[in-house]
């Protein structure tokens, strides 16, 4: 019996469905709770090309829901582990590996080669980035997200259908959404939502069934109920011309902070410290701390820093918002240093010493 016989014998799928899968290219963004069940099934079923994108390593507390990883894998690159296991599962699949996070600089270039994207990330900035990139490239993407015992699934931007922004026009603030450490999830929920996502992907790729476009599926594990909410396209969400300048990384690693008061004392007691001011040149010229180096936030990624003598780098802006973003960005770029945000920024400093 052929490898895919059990599905090719289905009248509504057939050898045609299999053929379509084998020629399909799917990018999975995120190799965590959602990405792994999606990949296990898409790979088993014979999707021809799978793009894997993640830069995390396996952590011990991932094992409770990220079922492809073993205890031995803790500390290894997720990308490497997943590639190894999926290759063993299906040697016919062509894998493309992206050892990176999705950013505004690489998103369009990476996504353009795929038929569809699976949003299996764990943070809003990447979800909005995927949405906007898919709108620009006219690619559908299968959205999945989790909260405790619940999950969301939908297909966005499918044949000019509604997008993620038609449900949630703007990214929520950091304060209104629990961060990942507070926000647990029952281990099996990502398995349910991830397999739902895989099913939607298969339907899109092969043309069978009804795609969850314009419908948000709400799954509640405690009552085992699925509810579908209909929603419409807001046409202005398709009128995107380019990506936003910035997708705020509200991610789970909260950057360390220092109060403006403590920072003042530090300034007085220490001879040298490294302080980066990420405001614009204009703002910087108006008022600044003499210890500060000015690298505006939008130039941060391009700048290369030479920080050799110290382990701690302080980051400041006007209110503390941009410095938080900057600190996280720098932390990713320079993992061996610690970047500390000054709470309240120059506003607070000014209020202390007028």
């Amino acid at each position, binding site marked *: 019996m052929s490898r895919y016989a059990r599905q090719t014998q289905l009248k509504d799928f057939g050898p045609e469905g299999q053929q379509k899968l084998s020629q399909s290219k799917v990018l999975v963004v*995120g190799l*965590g*709770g*959602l*990405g792994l069940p999606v990949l296990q099934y898409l790979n088993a079923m014979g999707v021809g090309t799978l793009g894997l994108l993640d830069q995390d390593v396996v952590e011990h507390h991932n094992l409770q829901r990220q079922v492809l990883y073993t205890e031995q894998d803790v500390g290894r690159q997720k990308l490497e582990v997943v590639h190894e296991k999926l290759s063993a599962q299906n040697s016919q699949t062509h894998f493309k590996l992206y050892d990176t996070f999705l950013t505004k600089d690489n998103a369009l270039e990476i996504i353009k080669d795929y038929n569809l994207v699976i949003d*299996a*990330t*764990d*943070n*809003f900035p990447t*979800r909005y980035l995927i949405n906007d990139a898919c709108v620009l490239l006219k690619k559908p993407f299968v959205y*999945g*997200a*989790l*909260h*405790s015992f*619940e*999950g*969301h699934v939908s297909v966005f931007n499918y044949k000019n259908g509604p997008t993620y922004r*038609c*449900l*949630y*026009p*703007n*990214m*929520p*603030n950091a*304060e*209104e*959404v*629990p961060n*990942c450490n507070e*926000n647990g*999830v029952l281990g099996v929920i*990502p398995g349910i939502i991830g397999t739902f996502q895989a099913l939607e992907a298969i339907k899109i790729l092969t043309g069978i069934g009804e795609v969850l476009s314009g419908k*948000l599926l*709400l799954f*509640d594990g*405690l*009552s085992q109920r699925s*509810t*579908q*909410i*209909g*929603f*419409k396209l807001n046409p202005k969400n398709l009128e995107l011309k380019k990506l936003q300048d910035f997708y705020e990384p*509200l991610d789970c690693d909260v950057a360390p902070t220092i109060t403006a008061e403590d920072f003042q004392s530090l300034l007085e007691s220490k001879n040298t410290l490294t302080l980066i001011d990420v405001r614009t040149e204009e703002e910087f010229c108006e008022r600044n701390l003499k210890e500060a180096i000015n690298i505006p936030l939008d130039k941060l990624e391009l700048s290369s820093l030479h920080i050799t003598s110290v382990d701690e780098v302080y980051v400041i802006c006007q209110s503390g918002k941009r410095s938080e973003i900057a600190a996280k960005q720098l932390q990713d770029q320079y993992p061996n240093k610690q970047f500390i945000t000054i709470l309240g920024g120059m506003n607070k400093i000014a209020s202390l010493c007028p």
Partner: protein
Amino acid sequence: MTILLFGITKDIVGAPTLSVPTASVTGKKIPKTVKELKAFLGNTYPELNKLSSLAVAVNNSYAEDDQVINSYDEIALIPPVSGG
């Protein structure tokens, strides 16, 4: 009027559903639109006011703020969720 709660709204209220009185026996002003409902709920649960990005569904359809609601409508509060 029964309101189904999802995501963080369930955590804020501490229950999966919420009942809103529709007869004015309580003397309170009764919400007539989605916007009024949000304000009404925000009064009782101030943490709901923080949710700048809260979707509301009326009878399983996404509803804008100005949509009129009635006592027999089934309403759901659907905040964005981020986990993966």
